[in-house]
């Protein structure tokens, strides 16, 4: 018995250490930090100054941070519906019995494994360019002047452009998961419904969708986590922080490691960055809780 205990401890310790050192301790410290005024990231706790909720108040009164919350909400809700909807559409097409299923699936998934930096650069420096860009040339070719003159990178359109690029990279990933889910549905259901004369649309709503409940929930959770950490595309699409692309994570990065916020030393406060982190985590936890409420998991 003693031996077994020793064995359990030995096998669990490295993983538990990871948890304590890399997750638990930093989390507690970040929460504490968010209630303090902290000059530099590397300041020791002794140098922190307790300021109660000041950091949160400061964040909420900052137009830029508020904008970042609006953006993340748009990314999550609108982006989520469109991206997951497209993923669903493509996964249904791919599993419908078309030829070359594997080829199409690989093609759709390709953007996801390319480095985001490379992909975002392709979009920004080529597709959306307002002189030699792909879209500009395409619409000029089609004599669609209004679209040819569309300024994809103007402030009012930048968010849309960024989301198109982000969606192009992301759709394939969620499509993979959904295809796996649809492949798991027994062919018998479709066979039976076909005999009863159901069309493809009916089949989708009465068989595919209900059977995919768990999988859809899974994709929503994955998408929400990705949205909460929305960072790369923002920084690549904007030279400085911009209203169109700023997200809480970008804001936090700029407060702590960047230069845009707090050009004067008195404003510089790492604690506000920590508070932004806490708010992001709160959002993730709320979304997860709501999802678990709305779509209870059947299996597991």
């Amino acid at each position, binding site marked *: 018995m003693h031996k077994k205990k020793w064995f359990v401890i030995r096998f669990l310790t490295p993983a538990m250490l990871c948890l304590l050192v890399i997750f638990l301790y930093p989390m507690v410290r970040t929460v504490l930090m968010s209630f303090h005024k902290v000059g*530099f*990231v*590397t300041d020791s706790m002794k140098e922190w100054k307790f300021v109660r909720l000041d950091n949160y108040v400061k964040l909420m*009164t*900052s*137009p*830029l*941070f508020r904008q970042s919350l609006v953006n993340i909400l748009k990314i999550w809700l609108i982006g989520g519906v469109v991206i997951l909807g497209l993923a669903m559409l493509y996964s249904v097409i791919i599993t419908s019995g078309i030829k070359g299923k594997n080829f199409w699936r690989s093609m759709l998934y390709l953007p996801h494994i390319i480095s985001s930096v490379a992909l975002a650069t392709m979009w*920004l420096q080529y597709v959306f*360019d*307002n*002189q030699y860009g792909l879209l500009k040339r395409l619409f000029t070719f089609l004599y669609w002047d209004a679209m040819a*003159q569309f*300024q*994809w*990178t*103007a*402030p*009012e*359109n930048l968010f849309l452009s960024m989301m198109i690029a982000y969606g192009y990279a992301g759709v394939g990933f969620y499509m993979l998961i959904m295809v796996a889910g649809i492949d798991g549905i027994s062919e018998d259901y479709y066979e039976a419904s076909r005999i009863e004369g159901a069309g493809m649309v009916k089949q989708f709503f009465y068989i595919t969708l209900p059977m995919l409940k768990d999988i859809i929930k899974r994709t929503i959770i994955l998408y929400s986590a990705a949205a909460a950490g929305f960072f790369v595309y923002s920084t690549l699409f904007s*030279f*400085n*922080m*911009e*209203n*169109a692309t*700023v997200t809480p994570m970008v804001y936090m990065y*700029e407060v702590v*490691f*960047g*230069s*845009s*916020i*707090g*050009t*004067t*030393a008195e404003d*510089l406060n790492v604690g506000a960055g920590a508070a932004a982190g806490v708010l992001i985590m709160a959002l993730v936890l709320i979304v997860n809780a709501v999802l678990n409420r709305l779509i209870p998991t059947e299996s597991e």
Partner: protein
Amino acid sequence: MKKMKLFTALLLSSAMILGGCGGANESADTGAQQNSSAQEEASTDTSAAETAEEETADDGEASAEEEAAPKELSGELTYWSMWNDTEPQGEAWQEIIDGFMAKYPAVKVNVQWCGRDNKKILKPALEGGEVIDIFEYPLEIDLNEYILDLSPYVDVAYDTTGGKTFRETLLPSLLTTPQDMTGRSDIIPAIGYKPWISVFMYNQSIFEEANVTAEPKTWEELDAACAKIKEAGYSPITFDDAYASWLPGMYLARAKGQDWVRELVKDTTGEMWQDEAVVSMAKAFEDFASKGYFDENVGGNKWPAGQIDFGNSKVAMYYNLSGLPTEVADITGPDFKWGGFSYPDVPGGLGTCGKEDPAGCTLLAVNKNTADPDLAMAFVTYALSVENDALMVEKAGITPATLDTAWPSTLVNLKPAFESVEVSLKSGGDIGSNADVAPTISENFIKLAAGQISADDFVANMVAATKQ
């Protein structure tokens, strides 16, 4: 199953290789790491209990050592550069570094090409105890804790100063501007080089073709010049998103002065944005937009799209720093004729055109925690010696730092603008000083210039955004 085994074998062997790799790496790194952690301790100790006395004591010690030190230089220096090694400036620096190491074989200079990211990575690196002896001080961040007072080092003659003291070889502003820029008048926080100024850069060929004979000094003259240029078939003005707020910022600085602009962007009532100066500024640009003075792509320009249009002779003017010719050198080619004029006076303004302009220089600072300040200064003075300054001017087309260096052909027309500046402003009249509001100003100005919103919309949007 066979494939699986193969895969496992691969995984394991790669893990082993890695182990080997990591091990080798570790042993190579240990020296540096120990060094850096020792440095860090030293730095936290001193920074925690720093007093002015200690500081001066340090300096005294340093200069005493210097007198006793033998002329033979040896050791290792690390320079974190704000340039990329692919830029002309970076290439010039590389040449200087190679020259320095050839001259003093016992010295090794490590260089880290940070690019403009240096403002993001310098502070974390310094805080992390990274060994950095020399760095370009990015004004956006506060590195006061890490700079060495260079006062004891400038009135000394070096190998490369030809018998004069270092101070005597430099343009005087390069020792005083760093003080203004960092707000440290008590010490010499850095040595300046590559002095810059922010002006309307223009394409002389287009100006000639459009028969614009004199550089505009007032808003009306600018208006007239734009009309002629437009007539001649060119876009008069363009800008990029990154610098968008400079145009309105300088207008307001000309109208009411930089301090007022600073107050404006800090305003939380929204009232200051209804001020007449703001309204007339918005109207002036609305007028320019409606006359088609801004390039058609101005609404969607992502840096550096606009400056490339300018370099391609599609647009006549681009309000920017005097470093621009170097950035677009590959596009303009060597025959491009550069000109530059100070931001014009505006109606009812202060009349500071040609006297007050955003100006400054690149700051070369030495880390307080450097192991060997003399070696660091030997390198700095070598880099800013007349011949190396000439090399930088020639290779990188930058403005000279020493009195005896000739100006490059691309910039010689800007020399008058440089010499007339009496008061150095911050870029864009410091309109970007409130980072929370800056993106909103840029965004609305871009829309205004692109003709998407009216002057009234601009004012209304700014009021709405700043009112709390």
